[in-house]
């Protein structure tokens, strides 16, 4: 157990750099300020959920998860230090699990705090809970996918951004069937159901579907990462 925690701690130190944490926190702070200013000037019934969905779930969550989790294993590959984990007599899944855990430890406070504050300022208690749960869904799903992405390509940030903008931001909104293949459907569904608002999505997924899809995406992402670690040509 100490070996696993040691590995997690090691990864944590390499991803939670002051630059990344400050930059991501600033984005969150800007979101809070914009949300408060707009809410004060144009108050509306569905403004809180709408803003939390558009800024929080469609931009802030995937962006922060992308920046942090592509670095978890990506930094090790880039700096050629993955070998120091890879050569040890441990299962590759443990490296994957440590990477995901390290990502979660950084992401949970980095995302939940600003979005929770934002929801509290512009919305009510249900909005806060909805935002927190939806963010957790997004963190889990995106983290497992982007951790894999960081392992397979050195241009993970560019590819991840393209995915967020093109697929999650655009293509998923074109048709209902495409929407079911985008994580945003499940994050906004969670917010919509808990906040009891039809604003973000017209036909939200059920709680069971959200849970099953989230767990499924995590399993698929973790399995791909472990497979890649097994098949990799390590420097």
């Amino acid at each position, binding site marked *: 157990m100490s070996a696993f925690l040691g590995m997690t701690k090691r990864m944590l130190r390499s991803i939670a750099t002051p630059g990344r944490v400050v930059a991501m926190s600033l984005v969150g702070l800007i979101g809070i300020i914009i949300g408060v200013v707009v809410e004060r000037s144009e108050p509306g019934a569905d403004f809180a959920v709408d803003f939390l969905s558009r800024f929080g779930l469609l931009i802030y969550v995937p962006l922060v998860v992308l920046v942090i989790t592509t670095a978890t294993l990506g930094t090790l590959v880039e700096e050629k230090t993955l070998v120091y984990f890879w*050569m040890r*007599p441990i299962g590759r899944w443990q490296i994957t699990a440590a990477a995901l855990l390290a990502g979660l430890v950084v992401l949970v406070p980095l995302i939940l705090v600003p979005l929770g504050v934002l929801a509290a300022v512009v919305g009510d208690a249900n909005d806060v809970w909805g935002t927190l749960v939806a963010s957790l869904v997004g963190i889990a799903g995106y983290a497992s996918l982007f951790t894999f992405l960081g392992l397979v390509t050195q241009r993970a940030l560019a590819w991840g951004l393209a995915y967020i903008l093109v697929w999650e931001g655009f293509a998923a909104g074109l048709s209902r069937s495409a929407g079911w293949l985008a994580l945003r459907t499940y994050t906004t569904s969670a917010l919509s159901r808990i906040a009891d608002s039809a604003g973000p999505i017209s036909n939200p997924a059920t709680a069971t579907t959200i849970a099953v899809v989230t767990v499924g995406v995590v399993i698929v992402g973790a399995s791909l990462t472990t497979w890649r670690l097994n098949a990799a040509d390590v*420097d």
Partner: protein
Amino acid sequence: MTVMPPPPPATPVLSDAVAIVDAPPPPGNQTVVASRVSKWFGDVVAVSDVSFAVSPGVTALLGPNGAGKSTMLRMLAGLAPTSQGEISVLGANPRKDKNVRGRIGLVPQQEGLFAEQRAIEFVTLAAQLNGMPNARQAARDALDIVELDPDDHRPTLKYSKGMKQRVKVAQAIVHKPDLLLMDEPLTGLDPRQRLHMIELIRDLGAQGVSVIVSSHVLDEVERLGSRVLVISQGRLAAQGDFHEIRALMDDRPHRIRVRTDDPRTLAAALLTSAGVSGVTVAPGGAVLVDTDDVDRFRRSLAPVAKQLDLQLLEVRPLDDDLESVFKYLVGR
């Protein structure tokens, strides 16, 4: 859980390209067996049809830069799959068997360490991941062996190249491996540390650890006093005792360039000299002499020049570098 004993290692198939073949270690004593191993990256062949076996003790993987030594070591460590052929380490596939990975120590070529971590933290983590019961103490011992201070509070980022090299060695030996793979471990060390590292490598070999050390420096390998695998252009050019290979390198034909005020007269005279197998006058006027016995040729050159009243302006061996030696061995 039942642990099955490892299967007996396969007898290696020796490559046709090998210049010197000593008797491979007996099968029961082989820790590493490479059988007809090749590795290519796209169209580039990094290692071609290499076979050898290694037993406890020090084995040097000698070859010029870009010869395929690092790729070979990476395959032995299981870091890279072979494109063709098989590698057995301690009776198992190092890429698939995690228990075997725990019996291998690797000093990689790259300098990269976890920059902001202290040496003791880095080596302790290595010990923990290898399941050492008292990881911290094992790390202290390993750092002591490589003459680094376990209580040094500086991050490895602030270390010199030589210190980083020693940290890499410490993390590779902290779990007392049966096989130690070291990729250019003497790089960046000062002369005293180099001597200490050579002694350490020899001690580990004497203790029964199979140590495979890659190097492109002939003198380093000579000081290791080891068995040698010479690799060049991805092929195994020679294998055997260092002294036998050294002798072969010294006995090969050499080409020497001689510049004089009358090249044609000197060339004609040298044709009948002892030990000279060929003489050519190059377009620039230099005399190119091929000889199997450099010392004998050098001794005879001055008297010939004096007798003909010629002035010798330059006498320079053209193929005394390691690259030429490897080319010769591969071309045999």
